[in-house]
């Protein structure tokens, strides 16, 4: 693309690229190779089928005192739990970020620096510290949230919303900058829409690229997170806790799980890039 680059600098560039690509791929290649070695003296996908297998009778609907529960092999139940946490976090983030940011853009531009400041604060609160703070704030009266399942989930979702706030806020903020919210709002209002309708049916659809790319980051975090979820749900029902437990107890399965979770991350990143491409919005939210 730059025809004037000297051959020397081009050679150096290829060399740097080769070294970096080696650093990034060698651990994955060896891990993939290792994941195929469960059966002696031959390559097989045994580790994967051990992890992914659905033995007969392992899936059942059960009626318990707490309602109907679905029993599944741990890979699926833990992934389902973390995906659920991700979905709830996406809904919750959207609910707390979009209306406020919209309103600040429209009516209170002086508050923009305040929002920006708050949105970088999570960088100063490590996950484990937020975990400690949340647990100690909400495990005792006056707000004993950890006593109930729903309360514990709310803490998890709130915590995840904090973790991804720098990315979700930046993404939605950029999205709002890219559309003419004043005209859209005036048009909708003059047609008789109330504020909830304006946000839900006019602003949100125009922000879908921003919201979707923020959502995918949220998914990546929810699936990989370990500290907060492991302390909130000590019964190890999350995907992160499942991975950690497999790492302690198994030999080949962790290798297969590494590859599977990398594939999940790859899928999410490719989706983000596909969605971000072809729009005027920067994909600034990818870290």
């Amino acid at each position, binding site marked *: 693309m730059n025809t004037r680059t000297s051959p020397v600098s081009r050679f150096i*560039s290829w060399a740097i690229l080769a070294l970096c690509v080696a650093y990034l791929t060698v651990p994955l290649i*060896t891990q993939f190779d290792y994941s195929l070695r469960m059966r002696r003296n031959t390559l097989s996908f045994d580790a994967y089928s051990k992890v992914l297998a659905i033995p007969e009778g392992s899936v059942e609907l059960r009626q318990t005192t707490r309602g109907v529960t679905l029993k599944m092999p741990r890979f699926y139940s833990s992934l389902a739990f973390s995906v659920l946490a991700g979905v709830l976090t996406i809904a919750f983030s959207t609910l707390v970020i979009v209306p*406020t940011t919209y309103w600040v853009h429209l009516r209170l531009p002086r508050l923009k620096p305040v929002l920006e400041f708050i949105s970088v604060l999570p960088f100063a609160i490590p996950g484990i510290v937020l975990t400690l703070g*949340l647990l100690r704030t909400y495990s005792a009266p006056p707000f004993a949230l950890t006593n109930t399942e729903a309360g514990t989930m709310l803490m998890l979702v709130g915590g995840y919303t904090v973790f991804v706030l720098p990315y979700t806020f930046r993404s939605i903020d950029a999205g709002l900058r890219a559309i003419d919210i004043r005209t859209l709002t005036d048009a909708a209002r003059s047609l008789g829409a109330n504020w909830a309708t304006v946000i839900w049916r006019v602003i949100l659809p125009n922000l879908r690229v921003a919201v979707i790319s923020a959502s995918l980051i949220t998914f990546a975090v929810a699936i990989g997170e370990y500290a907060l979820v492991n302390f909130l749900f000590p019964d190890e029902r999350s995907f992160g806790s499942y*991975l*950690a437990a497999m790492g302690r107890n198994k030999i080949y399965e962790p290798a297969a799980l590494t590859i599977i979770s990398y594939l999940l991350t790859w899928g999410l990143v490719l989706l983000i890039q596909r969605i971000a491409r072809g729009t005027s919005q920067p994909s600034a939210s990818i870290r």
Partner: protein
Amino acid sequence: MQRTIPLSVRRTNWAWLGTAPFFLFALAFMFLPAWTILSGSFRDASGALTLVNLRDVFQEKILAAYSVSIQLSVVTALVGALVGTLLAYAITWGGLPRSVRSAVITFSSVASNAGGIPLAFAFITLLGRTGVMPKFLKTLGLDLYANGFSIYSLTGLIVTYIYFQFPLMVLIMAPAFDGLKREWREAAENLGGTTFDFWRRVGLPILLPSFLGATVLLFGNAFAAYATAEALTGSKVDVITRIISVQIRGDVMYNPNLSYAISLGMMVVLGVSVFLYVLLQQRTARWLR
């Protein structure tokens, strides 16, 4: 006419109401937990004000953990920043094909998100005691583990953290390199400058704030990391986040107020880095974009 006044009053009320969800969320999930930590740092078990917790942070074991975490963060931030900048240069100004660039960006997004437990697994397979690399090097006559190397050590953590540090640097620096205008280089050449002059007098000074800001970000990224260290080294290396996790679990030396003070220390270190980052970011904004 009478109606205009109440309407405008209602509008102002609405304006503040509209910002409520976000601020309530920030209050409940950031400020209250932070306040618990801040106020708890200055109280003893009975709730009386004290400075004992802050003094106790300066005991050997905790200072050692801070020191390990800071070494780990400084080394991986510097190495990550240098390597990441070189790679960002290679894919923007280095004359590599366009397709290489987008592949590197994609891979970097994956790798910078890839921290945590799976990454630890991959490095244990590669560099663990019976790992692929030590086995291979042994056949060449080099015994890594007999020569003091171990993946379950600070060195091991450094090698592993770099895996997500330099890709993060690439993601920040590639747009910064893009922001350098080709015209500036032509201008430098027209004035008789060499390539070296251009980078020394124009390119690097403009990139410096970005570079420093991103390096600070990398430092914070490593300093706050927990899951990777827990899965890789566990109790063999005490990083500061692990000390806090042990305190939460409430095993040995359980003292909630001390754990608040340790956390406060982390937040102070990271608060300073975020402040520096924002400052440097504003500098950058002047030239780029």
